[in-house]
């Protein structure tokens, strides 16, 4: 079953065509890789899915519903979560509170409901678990400004997970992690995926992409240039020329 269908999405920023008629489907329970050169439009595509970017053309269809007219928060409420490539923690609160807040999504959906509730104990517990899951529990009480980049990247993931997403959009979550840390986090994704979270993963770390994503979509210059089994795509001459360069991927 397709949980998410992108129909001929085009996005323009002023004179720049960031995406040109990109179509794509995401199946229930899939872990899809999204790769492509710098500036290909990967981030823009995920931002279009969550609604931060409005497509100039095309539709975003979630489980058969056209969600294109919906606002960002309404889409988030329907189970889409995004981790930002350029990290965006709430800098005025602790790392833990960043995640606690996200974990309280059921209470914050409605203003009156939010006004009516105070207890945070459940959410705090859940948040601690998630920080542990991504391996930054030791920073729980720190301010995000004091965190190294790798930890902030993982905070993005923990916060997105706290909203109990059905579709998790991951924008280069492994960047800034060394190979061991990256592998560990990638394993976490696999486990969550097995638990039923559908995922899209943007990564330039092709080793990990090849390891955990059975299928990839390749963008270049705002257009889809390939889609298929990861192994095939990584050896596709067009992909190699545009993206990987001379060396053959060490997948």
């Amino acid at each position, binding site marked *: 079953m397709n949980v998410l269908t992108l129909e001929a999405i085009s996005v323009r920023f002023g004179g720049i065509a960031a995406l040109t008629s990109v179509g794509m489907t995401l199946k229930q329970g899939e872990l899809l890789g999204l790769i492509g050169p710098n500036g290909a439009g990967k981030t823009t595509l995920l931002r279009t899915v969550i609604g931060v970017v409005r497509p100039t053309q095309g539709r975003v269809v979630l489980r058969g519903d056209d969600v294109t007219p919906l606002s960002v*928060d309404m889409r988030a409420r329907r189970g889409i979560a995004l981790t930002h490539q350029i990290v965006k923690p709430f800098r005025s609160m602790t790392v833990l509170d960043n995640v606690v807040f996200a974990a*309280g999504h059921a209470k914050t959906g409605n203003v009156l409901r939010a006004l009516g509730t105070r207890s945070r104990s459940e959410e705090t517990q859940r948040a601690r678990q998630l920080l542990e899951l991504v391996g930054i529990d030791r920073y729980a009480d720190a301010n995000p*400004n004091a965190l190294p980049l790798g930890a902030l990247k993982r905070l993005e993931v923990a916060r997105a997970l706290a909203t109990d997403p059905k579709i998790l959009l991951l924008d280069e979550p492994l960047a800034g992690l060394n190979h061991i840390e990256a592998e560990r986090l990638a394993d976490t994704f696999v486990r969550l995926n097995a638990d039923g979270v559908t995922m899209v993963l943007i990564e330039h770390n092709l080793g990990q992409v090849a390891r955990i994503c059975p299928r990839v979509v390749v963008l270049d210059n705002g257009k889809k240039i390939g889609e298929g089994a990861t192994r095939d795509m990584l050896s596709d001459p067009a992909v190699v020329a545009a993206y990987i360069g001379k060396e053959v991927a060490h997948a």
Partner: protein
Amino acid sequence: MLPTLGAYEVSLIVIVSVNVMLALSLNIITGLCGQVSLGHAAFFGVGAYAAAVLGNLGVPFLVVLPLAGLVGCLLGLLVGLASLRVRADFLAITTMGVGFVFVGFVRKQNWLGAEMGLSNIPDHGLGDAGFVGVCLALVVAIALLSAYIKRSWLGFGFATVADDEDTSRTLGIDVAAYKLTAFVVGTFLAGVAGATYAYFTRFLIPGAFGFGVSISILAMVIVGGVGSIWGVIVAAVALTLLPEFIRVVNDYKIFIYGVLLVLTMRLSPGGLAGLVGQLSASRAEMPPRSAGAQP
């Protein structure tokens, strides 16, 4: 508890109460939800004028209070809608503009007394003690409400909107609803404060709700420490009574007020709340604002 109070003390208590209410109401919008407003006096004024008009129609004081709040938050809702379009400093200046437009509008409205003001506001009929009682009760109620909101998930949501509304949205927060709530609650309370003021002075002129008033309310919030409820209360009381206490140095009192604002901000940028925070050793060091660390 009141028989020992003279008329002078009563009038001071009322003025202080009005200012505390105003400061707390702005604290909900600016302190908790991060929407800096330089035009809060407009909502105060709308409440005051509404109270005067209603009072003249024979509506009793205790009924006028919530009605004035409602009228205040009608305008608040409008400005709240504007806050969905413009952000940060643009919003601050927009609200400042709302303040000027309000005063400019009232100045030309004959049914609101225009420049001559409204001077026939009826007596509240509660007597001094009763009126002071109402004022204090309002202050306590507003303080408790503020404290409750701050601890609730609503307050938590406000904090994220204040921090980064775009990110907040991606976590499923209906930012518009949160901002509007802050504006509606804050301006409702400002309207109530306006009604209290109207029944206190029983004379309204447009000039009493000008830019200077908006600034002094904001100063109370920031000197108190943005978002801190007790800090804002202390600052509102202190800044209101300060000129009263330094009447001795008559000619210099506003000068001193200005200098104190500068010194407070210079020596304790976090306001009173920040100062106390620094003094209590347990507190971890404040992280520096990351100047554009992340694009």
